[in-house]
């Protein structure tokens, strides 16, 4: 079995109101020196396969088709 982690983040230039709110909250909790905060999503995915190349190709297709909205988001794939 292959374990993969897919990370989806907003593209640069896309406004992230939730990240902004978290950034403000960190400041108000007394954490100084916090720069920009951007919120993203993490997916941990298990695949019934031993073929890493196929897993990577499948994960890329999953990202393009469903996990990320490539109009506003980037994704990265990491295999265990």
């Amino acid at each position, binding site marked *: 079995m292959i374990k993969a982690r897919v990370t989806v983040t907003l593209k640069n*230039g*896309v*406004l992230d*109101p*939730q990240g902004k*709110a978290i950034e403000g909250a960190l400041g108000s909790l007394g954490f100084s020196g916090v720069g920009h905060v951007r919120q993203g999503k993490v997916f941990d995915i298990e695949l019934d396969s031993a073929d890493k190349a196929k897993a990577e190709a499948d994960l890329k297709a999953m990202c393009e*088709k*469903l*996990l990320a*909205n490539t*109009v*506003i988001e980037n994704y990265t794939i990491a295999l265990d």
Partner: protein
Amino acid sequence: MKSAVVQLPGLNRDRDMIAALTKISGKAPVTVWQTETEFPDDIDLIVIPGGFSYGDYLRCGAIAARMPIMQAIKEKADKGVKVLGVCNGFQILVEAGMLPGALMRNASLKFVCKEVKLEVVNAETDFTRAYEKGQIIRCPVAHHDGNYFADAETLASMEGNGQIVFRYAEGTNPNGSLNDIAGVMNSRGNVLGMMPHPENLIEAAHGGSDGRGLFASALDVVAAAA
């Protein structure tokens, strides 16, 4: 003229939409479930109503946009059939790639449920002929993710092509949408998506009928063409 309302788990404005279409056209729309793969041949208008399909999980409209019925909607749209998506329906259409851009969390991070003013930016569409260019109409909104985004190049081309159909007017932008965008259409002009709910302002009991023109346009043009 024949209309269809698409139903998916979690959509909750389908009954309002069915009522509006029935009252304005005099004929009840057919309802089509998400797992179906085709529409009746003679369908002229397909409507995806609002709600919270699939609990808004992943991204609003993301899962709905991958259901079997969407392929049938794309095929109909490619043949020129009119498609209207309201609220979650709009989110589904952008997630399906049938309209440009994306709908993000409201800038206020709050769910907004109120009445806004809309400017009819393009009155020469199959959905807005009953209005006049520049006309300001009232319309309710109810959403958490209506903050329209598109990259600068896409936005400029949409503005140039008349694809911006409705804008929030008089400082009533409730969600931070770029260029105050409330509703957009595809370049062909037969697919319209909008966050506000025209189906909830069609008769005196609603407190006004400003939304009626949209359905009258979409349904009347079809009658004239038939």
